[in-house]
C-alpha cells in the first residue's frame, strides 16, 4: 500500500525512514520525495499488510511523522480519453491495460513515474495530488 509521510520542521533532518526499515525489517520503497528546509514529504510503498503494516505505520507515528493513505495515483478523465493506447506500452510496470473498450490502471503496480501522463496525447490522465484522500 502507498502512503504519504510528512516530516515536520523539527525532525526533517532525522534519518527516520531508514530507522523504521531497520527496526521493522520491511523493505519500504520510496516513490517520491520532496524535502525543503521546513518540511519533508515522501510517497512510500509499504509491501506488507495487516498487523505488519500497522507495525510499520506505528513506527513512523511514534517518531512524530504524519502518515496518510494515498489514493489512486492516476485519474482518468473518461470524457477526454479516446481509448488509443498511447499510455499502455510506455508504462514501465505494466500497470495500464486497454481491454476491449475500457482503460484500466492497476494502482498497486503504479510507481507514480508519470510516463502515462506525458504519453497521453489528449491530456486525459492526471496524477493526483499526493495524499489527498
Amino acid at each position, binding site marked *: 500500500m502507498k502512503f504519504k509521510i510528512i516530516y515536520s520542521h523539527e525532525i526533517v533532518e532525522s534519518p527516520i525512514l531508514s530507522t523504521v526499515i531497520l527496526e521493522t525489517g520491511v523493505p519500504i520503497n520510496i516513490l517520491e520525495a520532496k524535502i525543503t528546509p521546513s518540511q519533508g514529504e515522501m510517497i512510500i510503498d509499504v509491501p506488507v499488510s495487516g498487523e505488519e503494516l500497522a507495525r510499520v505505520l506505528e513506527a513512523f507515528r511514534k517518531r512524530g511523522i504524519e502518515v496518510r493513505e494515498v489514493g489512486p495515483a492516476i485519474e482518468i478523465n473518461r470524457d477526454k480519453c*479516446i*481509448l*488509443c*493506447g*498511447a*499510455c*499502455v*506500452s*510506455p508504462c*514501465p510496470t*505494466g500497470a495500464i491495460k*486497454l481491454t476491449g*473498450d475500457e482503460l484500466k490502471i492497476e494502482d498497486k503496480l503504479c510507481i507514480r513515474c508519470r*510516463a502515462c501522463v*506525458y*504519453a497521453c*496525447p*489528449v*491530456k486525459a490522465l492526471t496524477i493526483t495530488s499526493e495524499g489527498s484522500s
Partner: protein
Amino acid sequence: MEERGAETLRTYEQINEKIKRGEAVVMTADEFVEYTKQYGLEKAAKEVDVVTTGTFGAMCSSGVFLNFGHSEPPIKMWKCWLNDVPAYKGLAAVDAYLGATAISETRGIEYGGGHVIEDLVSGKEIELRGEGWPTDCYPRQYIETTITLDEINQAVLVNPRNAYQRYAAATNSTDRILYTYLGTLLPRYGNVMYSGSGQLSPLYKDRYFETIGIGTRIFLGGGIGYVIGEGTQHNPKAFFGTLMVRGDLKQMSPRYLRGATIHNYGVTLYVGVGIPIPIINMRVAETASTPDEEIYTEILDYGVPSRSRPVVRRVSYAELKSGKVEIEGREVVASAISSLTYAREIAEKLKQWILKGEFFLSRPAQLLPDKTEFKPLEVKRYEPRVRDVMTRSIISARPADDVKTVANLIVKHGIDHVPIVDDEGKLMGIVTSWDLAKAVAEEKRSLNEIMTRRVIVAKPDEPIDVVARRLTQYRISGMPVVDESFKVVGIITTDDIAKLIKGRSSG
C-alpha cells in the same frame, strides 16, 4: 484480366437503389471478415453490397481553410493568429489556412492548430489577431476580435494526407527513452507503438484502389466529406496509399476531430475517417475480407535517426492488436497511438447512416493512381560530414594503462578526450580530463576503474548538423568516430565544429 474498377457484381446505381428501398446489405469490415471466414468469399460477395471501414488516428497533414469575412474598415491580413497559433496568410485578404501542426507562439506545443480546430468545432470562441498590409482598398493595419464557427463564412477541412493504408510500427534499441510521432518508446526494445486500424483500415479494404477515387463520399470528422485525390506521399505499390480529403467543418463533431500533443514531439489532429467500400467485383470483395492476420507491416528501430530505419521484424496487425509482440525471443508490450475503439465506432456509424438511407455511395469521377512512387529528397548542396572535420591523429590508451600515463598524454597533446581501445583498435571506453581529475581526487590508479564504457560515438558519414545535436543532447564536448567494426578512426569535438563554422562565415 478485367479493368480496375469493373462493376461486375453490382453497380453503384443498383446499390443506391437498394439503399433507397432500405434493402441494402451493409456490414462493417470487422463483420465482413468474420462472415467470410464462416461462409466463404463467394457467398459473402454475393450477399453484401457495402462494407464500411474506419480509422481514427493522428493525421498531421490536416488543416482548415477559413474565410473570416470583411471588417469595417477592411483589412488585407498578411499575418494572422488564432488563439496565438499562426495561420498561413499567403492567400486573399481574409482567407487563411490553419495547419494542424502549427504551434502556439505563447504556449508552445501544449496548444496548436489541431486544438484550435477542435475548439472551433466545439463552438468555442477563438481569438483572432491579424496584421494588415495597408493599401488604398484595405486601409486597416491591425485587427483583434473573436470568431466562432457559426460566425465565419467558410471553414473547410482540407487534409493533404490522411488515412494511410497501413503504417510502420516503432521500437527503440537505444539506451534512452525516445519521443517520436508514434509516442513514447522505452529503451532496449521496451515497447512497440503502432498506428492504423488493420482490417478496418479504409484503404487496405480496397487495396488496389478500385472504388476509392476523386469524388468518393466518405465519413469525415463526424460529417460528410469527399475524397479529392490521392494524398501526398501516396505509395500504392508498397501499400502505403494515402488520401486527400475535404469536408465542411460546420457539419463535423469534436468527437471525431481531436487536437493532440505528442509529448516532446509536437501538435497534431486526430481525424476520424470512414469509407464505404461497394462490393463491385470479386477482387474488391477479396481485399475487403482481408483479416488482421494477413495484413503485415514492419517494426522499425527508431533508435537509428535516419530516413531508412532498420527493420526489426515483419509483424501482422493481429499480433500488434494482441498487445504482445515477440522481439529477439522476448515478449514486448505493444500498444496503438490510434484508437481502435473509435475506428470501430466510425465503421458502425457509417453503416447505420447507409441502412437508414441517409448516406448514398458515389462513383468516383476518377480512380486514384495505383503506380505512383514515393521519392526521397536528395540534399544537393555540399554538407560537411564528420570525416571532413574530425581529427584523424588519435591519441588513445589501453584499459590496463595507469592514470598517470594518460594524464601525461593529455598534457603533452593538449587534448580532453582519450579513447580507450583494445589490441585491434576497437573502442572500449573513453576517459576525459575531468575523469582524470576525479581519479586523482579519489586516488584511483587504473583506467579500467574510471573509464566511461557506454560511449556516445559518431560515424564518419554523419552530417555535422546531426552530430552537433547529439553533443548538446548528451552535454558532452567530444566523441570518438568509429567505423563499421567499431574501430576508432578519429575524434570530433565542439572545437572542430566551431572551427568549421568560423571558416564558413569568413568564406
